[in-house]
């Protein structure tokens, strides 16, 4: 099975980790989420009693 050939294992390891540690965090970390989700406020606004007009 060619995957078990140990010859390029170290090179592959070093290369893939180099890509994973340099290029990817730069691209993924640059994503920002500027719109904060609205927090559910615990205080409900005081409402007046609604009298139906009919």
């Amino acid at each position: 099975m060619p995957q078990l050939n140990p010859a390029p294992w170290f090179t592959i390891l070093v290369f893939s980790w180099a890509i994973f540690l340099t290029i990817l965090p730069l691209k993924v970390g640059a994503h920002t989420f500027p719109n904060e989700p609205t927090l559910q406020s615990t205080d409900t606004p005081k409402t007046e009693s609604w009298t139906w007009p009919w």
Partner: protein
Amino acid sequence: MVTSFFDQFSSPLFMGIPLMALALLLPWILLPTPSSRWLNNRLLTLQNWFLGMFTRQLLLPINHPGHKWALILASLMIFLLSLNLLGLLPYTFTPTTQLSINLGFAVPLWLATVLIGLRNQPNLSLAHLLPEGTPLLLIPILIIIETISLMIRPLALGVRLTANLTAGHLLIQLISTGLFVLLSLQPAVAILTGALLLMLSLLEVAVAIIQAYVFVLLLSLYLQENV
């Protein structure tokens, strides 16, 4: 030299450049880096939405100290997802079919979670080796079993991804070879084989996405236990 079906997985060269290097360097062209520009294009917006949704979902069950791992887990997901999906295109090389890459990511990341647990909260991490409520006589055996299952995790993580993707690619190659041979001999059977190949390709797309997700999810689970 007799070519076998496994030859697609040996690291091939293209004009002297190892395809592994190309397959690891080029996919990130498809992921534009966001700038400080407020309005993005559609591709960037889609990727931003997916990344935010995924990271939020992944970090839901993890305690606050584990949230430091958000960047590494998100970039691992993007890494594996892109490599898996792009490998399904014809004539591409899938680096995640190589044990070297999968074990190379599974072992250090798993070891990191274990060491973090042992360093910060050693009692709690060691307590995971004994499930609650075991009878007194079973305790020694169970600790041995749980230790073995702990040690097997990185192997399982790496080999799971390798085996799933390798098996998928191999099946696609086998069935398409059969289809090609049958086209001249028995066209009716060839049409059925073609339908099978189509469904298999859809399955492989699903498997590519799911396996990348399972890898990252299990790592987050191991992190959850130790943080």
